[in-house]
């Protein structure tokens, strides 16, 4: 008999969250090196930091 997964277990799965964190890191790296906006450059480090810390956290979520 299959046991139903809880809502939290369904929500906190590694795959999609890792993809999200990867996208945030990639966006941060783009903001850091783009030639268009100094404002985006100013926020780039915060975005990369959030993505990287997020990635470390979500990589401990169950598969």
């Amino acid at each position, binding site marked *: 008999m299959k046991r139903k997964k809880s809502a939290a277990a369904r929500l906190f799965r590694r795959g999609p969250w890792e993809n999200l*964190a*990867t996208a945030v*890191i990639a966006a*941060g790296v783009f903001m850091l*090196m*783009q030639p268009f906006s*100094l404002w985006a450059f100013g926020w*780039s480090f915060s975005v*990369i930091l959030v993505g990287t810390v997020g990635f470390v956290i979500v990589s401990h979520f169950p598969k």
Partner: protein
Amino acid sequence: MAGSTRSATNRAAAAATRFSAKLRGVSDASIAWIFIAPTILLLLAINIFPLLWTIYLSFTNFRANQPGRPVRWIGTRNYERLLGSEDIWGYLQATAHFVIWTMILQIALGFGLALLINRNFRGASFWTTIILIPMMLSPAVVGTFWTYIYQPQTGIFSYIIDFFAGTGALDMIGSVTLAPWSIIIVDTWMWTPYIMLLCLAGLRSIPDYLYEAAEIDRANALQKFWYITLPRVLPFLMLAVLFRGIENFKMFDLVVELTSGGPGSTTELASINLKREAFEKWRTGYSSAFAIILFVTIFGLGNIYVKVLNKVKS
């Protein structure tokens, strides 16, 4: 003499027996910790402690050339200064220009060479060895001899370009417009073989029956490339892009040897400016903050790299 040797051997054997008897009382986990402990201590001493110390320094006004000066905690001011500086923004754009163009050229040439070498023509292994030579050289050596190749009056590069295009003497390193391309050309020359090797590994892993099945289905060469070759090699290419991207983001030695960041600051990449701030201007706190920004960026990219690596493995 023989008796004393025998007694020494007996003593050593007895000591070994006593040691193994003592070890028998120790759990497996403890033995594992005994073996791992030196490595962990070494890692803490040469990796973790400097990292934590750099993070601390990045929030201070510390200058390493004035050790007697009181160190003041200035919060995130170093980060604010860095992330609001148009100069730093410019250095990171120069880094981006370098990384993007080296990636484009190295992938195009590396993949092309891999496709050629994969045809297994006569002498393919000889040419593979020749192509791999630049990758095996030291960046300092490569930088030095390319400065000779780039000499406008006597260098072979300027001579060849002049011969075919009639441009006259080309000052690759001294020109503001050409200097960024001079470092891109040298890095591409040096690291294309690496991309070629990875792509070749991907190409060799494609089973022949896929192409045979495609032949039966009357697929043309372009379709075989698009539907079989490219998807099979793509994970290897991604790996190469990420690995070389991270390496080029940190690029220092080759560019210092070639242009030293000049002319002006045209080829001053982020890591070169970091070294200038830290060891020429002695703004240790400020440069620590810059180092942390670069570290977090590389760490973030490293996470993506590991993720792609796991995908390739699976």
